[in-house]
């Protein structure tokens, strides 16, 4: 029973966080430890991925913390879905950290930057891996607490104000999450997600508890996840927080932290609640399938409306922004809509194929958005570092003085627009494909989904082409002509751009991983067996 690799990424991040906390007095050593820790994290994630997704197979591993058997102890679970999320998060995090080492001023690094960054990764990793709903709350809080501080990091007027909004909304969110967890525990008698999935699917076997409230309770939880993902109408904190945070932190917030909300939606609604035995469901104007996915039928329209609103608000808001960060922040709102749109389709899908396709599309889009938006925020940071501003009115002609940086930005923008063969194209294509397949299968609303996706995609072209013209072409002002982009920063941007191109050309691997992730997300029984079956077989019982 040495499946320590499951917990390894979390431990590496945690140890790194503590090590960088204890070495604050020794600047150099701290940065070195931090970078080493980040590489170690990358390695731990790679190990986990290689175990979960060896060629041609996908496994589910569960690990009982403190050695207590599920569902009593806390379980962490590594399956293809978690592995997918962890894998791309680890890469983006490493890039952001390397960038930070030469971007954030050394005083800031010494104060708290590195421990906070790694604690954020602890929270992210814990959230991706945990198989316990309350434990999810705890890791959310770890992630949030560090992100609060990182948003307010520069501690100026705009930073404090942005953080205030971010903090208050999320504190309310935390309370709502507790409420939901309490209700679910009281209703079902468990906190373990696999156990929860088993119980809601067959309440008769567990005391015949009332299943009806589960939908409302899960809706409370959904709002919290939507808040984390920055989905309209919970997107309000996004623009100011992304503007306020240091560039690499914005890259993390948009590229990784938001995706935790997406992951939670996929995990909790498709894996855990997907088969809730809700039989009587009345949705005005909508038909409810009788194949045991009635709960998802409720979330289909909900997710659709939220996704559509996000796409429109984010896309429209981004067009005329006067600064790169603002544009990227609004863009993030819109892009999260693109991630959730195929989930809405998956929730209402009539066939298993379309359901898998929808979830896989969301995963691919999440990955692409992580890379592309991460790159763009880092590029924005590098521009700021070189020019001293990232406001369009003061920019122009960057391609002349910073060609590599501009090329990196261009690749990121094209990836989000969906120009092939960059990875972003496949994200967009799969979103269209999911909606198109649903449309061909006659699912209500799928044509609307196609339309919204198209509008959003055109808006993306509109705002990025405008940004390009204003910032990168045109007459360079003096500041830009004297710009001296730091090689270490530009290198990270270019490396990410290359990664985006490689992921597109070698998309087969990504697609297989996304498919495996989607299948894992929908393989409820596999998840339950891995957590509860395995526990009976061995790990926790014979304790002490």
């Amino acid at each position, binding site marked *: 029973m040495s499946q320590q690799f499951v917990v390894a990424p979390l431990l590496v991040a945690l140890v790194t966080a503590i090590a960088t906390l204890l070495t604050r007095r020794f600047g150099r050593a701290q940065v070195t430890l931090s970078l080493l820790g980040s590489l170690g994290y990358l390695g731990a994630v790679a190990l986990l991925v290689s175990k979960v997704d060896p060629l041609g197979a996908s496994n589910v591993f569960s690990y009982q913390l403190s050695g207590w058997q599920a569902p009593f102890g806390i379980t962490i679970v590594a399956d293809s879905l978690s592995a997918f999320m962890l894998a791309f998060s680890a890469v983006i995090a490493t890039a952001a950290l390397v960038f930070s080492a030469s971007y954030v001023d050394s005083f800031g690094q010494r104060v708290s930057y590195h421990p906070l960054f790694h604690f954020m990764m602890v929270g992210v990793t814990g959230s991706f891996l945990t198989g316990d709903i309350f434990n999810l709350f705890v890791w959310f809080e770890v992630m949030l607490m560090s992100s609060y501080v990182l948003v307010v990091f520069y501690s100026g007027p705009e930073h404090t104000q942005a953080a205030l909004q971010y903090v208050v909304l999320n504190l309310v969110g935390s309370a709502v999450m507790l409420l939901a967890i309490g209700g679910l525990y009281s209703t079902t008698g468990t906190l373990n997600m696999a156990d929860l999935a088993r119980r809601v699917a067959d309440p008769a076997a567990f005391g015949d508890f009332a299943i009806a409230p589960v939908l409302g309770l899960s809706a409370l939880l959904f709002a919290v996840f939507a808040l984390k993902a920055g989905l309209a109408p919970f997107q*309000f904190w996004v623009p100011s927080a992304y503007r306020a945070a240091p560039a690499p932190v914005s890259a993390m917030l948009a590229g990784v932290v938001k995706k935790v909300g997406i992951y939670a939606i996929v995990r909790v609604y498709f894996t855990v609640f997907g088969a809730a035995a809700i039989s009587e469901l009345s949705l005005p104007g909508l038909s409810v399938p009788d194949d045991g996915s009635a709960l998802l039928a409720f979330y289909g329209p909900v997710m659709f409306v939220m996704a559509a609103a996000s796409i429109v608000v984010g896309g429209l808001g981004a067009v005329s922004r006067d600064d790169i960060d603002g544009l990227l922040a609004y863009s993030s709102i819109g892009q999260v809509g693109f991630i959730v749109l195929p989930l809405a389709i998956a929730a209402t899908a009539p066939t298993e194929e379309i359901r898998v396709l929808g979830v896989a599309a969301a995963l691919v889009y999440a990955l692409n958005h992580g890379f592309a938006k991460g790159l763009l925020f880092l590029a924005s940071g590098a521009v700021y570092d070189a020019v001293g501003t990232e406001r369009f009115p003061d920019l122009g002609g960057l391609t002349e003085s910073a060609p590599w940086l501009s090329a990196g930005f261009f690749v990121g923008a094209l990836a989000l627009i969906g120009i092939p063969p960059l990875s972003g194209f496949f994200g967009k294509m799969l979103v269209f494909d999911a909606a198109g*397949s649903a449309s061909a299968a006659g699912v209500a609303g799928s044509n609307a989904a196609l339309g919204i996706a198209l509008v959003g995609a055109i808006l993306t072209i509109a705002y990025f082409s405008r940004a390009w013209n204003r910032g990168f072409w045109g007459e360079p002002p003096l500041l830009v002509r004297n710009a001296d982009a730091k090689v270490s920063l530009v290198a990270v941007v270019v490396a990410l751009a290359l990664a985006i191109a490689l992921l597109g050309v070698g998309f087969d691997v990504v697609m297989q991983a996304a498919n495996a992730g989607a299948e894992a997300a929908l393989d409820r029984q596999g998840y339950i067996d891995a957590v509860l079956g395995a526990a009976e077989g061995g790990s926790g019982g014979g304790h002490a």
Partner: protein
Amino acid sequence: MQPTTDPAASAVLAVVFLPFVAAGLVPLVYRLVGERTAYYAAAIALACFGLVASQYGTHGAVSFPWIRSLGVSLSFYVDGLSLLVGFLASGVGVLILTYSGGYMHGEPSQPKYYASLLAFMGSMLGVAFAADLIALFVFWELTSLSSFMLIGHYQRQESSQYAARKSMLITVAGGLFMLIGFLLLHSVLLDVTSGSNAFSIVYMLENPELVQEELRSAGLFLPVLGLIGVGAAAKSAQVPLHIWLPNAMEAPTPVSAFLHSATMVKAGVYLLGRFRPVLVSHEWELLFAILGLTTMTVAAVLAVGATDIKELLAYSTASHLGLIVAGFGFASELGGETGAFHIINHATFKAALFLVAGIVAHEAGTRKIENLGGLKEDLPITAAITAVAALGMAGVPPFNGFYSKELLFEAAWEAAVHAGGGLAYLYPAVAVFGSVFTFLYSIRFLMLFFGEKPTGLHKVHSPPKAMLAPPLLLGVIAGLVSLGGILGTFGIHFAPFDHFVGEVWASTLPPGSDLHGGFSYYFPDHITPAVTMSAVTLVLGAASYPFYGRLHEGVNRVTDVNVLRANWYYNSAVFGLNGVSDTTAERVQNGLLRTYATWALASVAGLTLAGYAATSVTLPAFELSKVAVTVPILLVLLVAIVGAVAVSIAPSHISGVLTLSILGFMVAVFYVLADAPDLALTQLVVETLLLVIFLLVLDKLPAFYGNTDRAKMARDGVLSAAVGATVFVTVLVSTAATPTDGIASFFVEQAVPVGGGGNIVNVILVDFRAFDTLGEISVVAMAALSVLTLVAMRERGETQ
């Protein structure tokens, strides 16, 4: 048909990827040879041309696996149509790149220029040969992208930026429509082909009837047709999406000649030719014949209104693309023939004319039509080239454009007759009307070389050889094609040429179509409806040419009316979008936490209550509950509420904090009564510490009492009530549930024997669920870090 051999995989692969590799090497080459990079690039194009030529006579598909999990392969298909576009892309490429060697002398950013041109050529070759819907789309979008880069070549100029963005918005967005069309096609084919061929164009070409049938039965035939049509129309500048093409002339002239007349804009018509065998039908004819003829006419009229020679040529290009679209649109075999032949003719005369325009602009220093004239004295060879090309463009017999236009007239007439007359006679009528304008602007262009030299125009120098040779070659080819028609009348045919055009034609027809013994063309020797139409065109054209000036004015007066200009709609939309964007940002993200919280909380309440309503949750019976609230607990809770109310209406910060701690202490007492001593202790100490921190902080804050707006209070009250109601229902429904086998009993049983501790709560915290505690202390540690950061970074804030 003679037996054909399969294409060579390596050659096809090389022809598509060689330009990309070469493009990647451009910066290096430029460093070595400087401006002579033009000839390096031309050599690459020549190599591609040779590779394409080596595949002449082959027919079939080669395939390489790419994204297996999606069924996407990198497969290529060689037939007449793809070879034609391949020849155009590489052949015109050779000429353009050579020409650039002279034209771009001393221009900035040449490496980017040549790299983009080569990448474009590769993309275009990819479009030509791709036999997989996704692979086709990949190359399709890459052509848009390289076009964006090239139009924006003079990146400091705002007009270039405007033009580049416009072309990107229109062509890339159009591409997205096409992508959706492809994906719908794919999802329909997925069931039929069991997945393996769902993206395969070859499969579709082999089973056109099946594909059409499946599409129709899924109700997706029209959507797919329309979506693919939008993609083609955007790329091939069909009305009203043509507006990007005139602006694209901001690019250096070789680019205009290459991308925006000879090749990239042909991608759209190529697409129609490619899908014609699969989708041709009554609806197809209606859609594309009308679209094409409209474009042909409208763009020809606009060309008459042009004041700049490149603008004139741009509208002319759109017009001729319309002609080709209309040709492909007509469902008869003749339609395919028209399109196939005119693609060739247009490429020769239009590329030649663009290069001529480049010479004129380069040597005369102006592109204004009114400032030019009498150029033949200084540029005799150029004048000769122009004569052949412009007369071909005008459709004057016996020049090459005449023969393909004859085919259009024939196809239009036949379609009208076939459709039983009536409104269908508009086809030939509009075709003639549009052709008159084509005649007019073509002659006007030719007249640049004749007549008086305007006073402002000085001695015009001869262009360098590198700039003269390419148009000369194109002019010679156009001349040869023209000659072929005359000879054809006497039964002498350029057999290989006719055979090739026949191959192209065959590619655009469904299997089993009648090619009437293969393609041949000749000067008409008897009166047919088409000949009559040609004659009418020439007579009307010649008769109205003297009034060209007035027509020019008239057209411009009409296009001054905003609502008649597609551009006006584009500009209004794009600039209007900025306003909408500002409004969105200001209204939605208004900076007020109250707005944000209102939306978020209202959504939480709404969503949750909707969830309860959807499952028709029933509130539990009055007496049934697992929760027994005793009287002391009740009293404590009531005091807590009083505390909370007092907090809400507290007149000052201090009183608020003190009442808040009453609430906190009541909660602690509640924990005592609820048999939770650890919680009570914790709550007590935490409450004390919080009180201290509150007081310390409040000491520094001003006393602030937000003045109360009654309307807002009422709204907040309603929202608060909704949130309260949500919680109320949540509490009620969750107290009613009675699951068995809850996990809690396990902890009670195991705490002492295995956990080794009597305080079950503590055993849970440090053993059963120590993982939670680990997270919890991380948060506490970070809270301390956060406070440090907030204070320490204060002075540093300004540095970033």
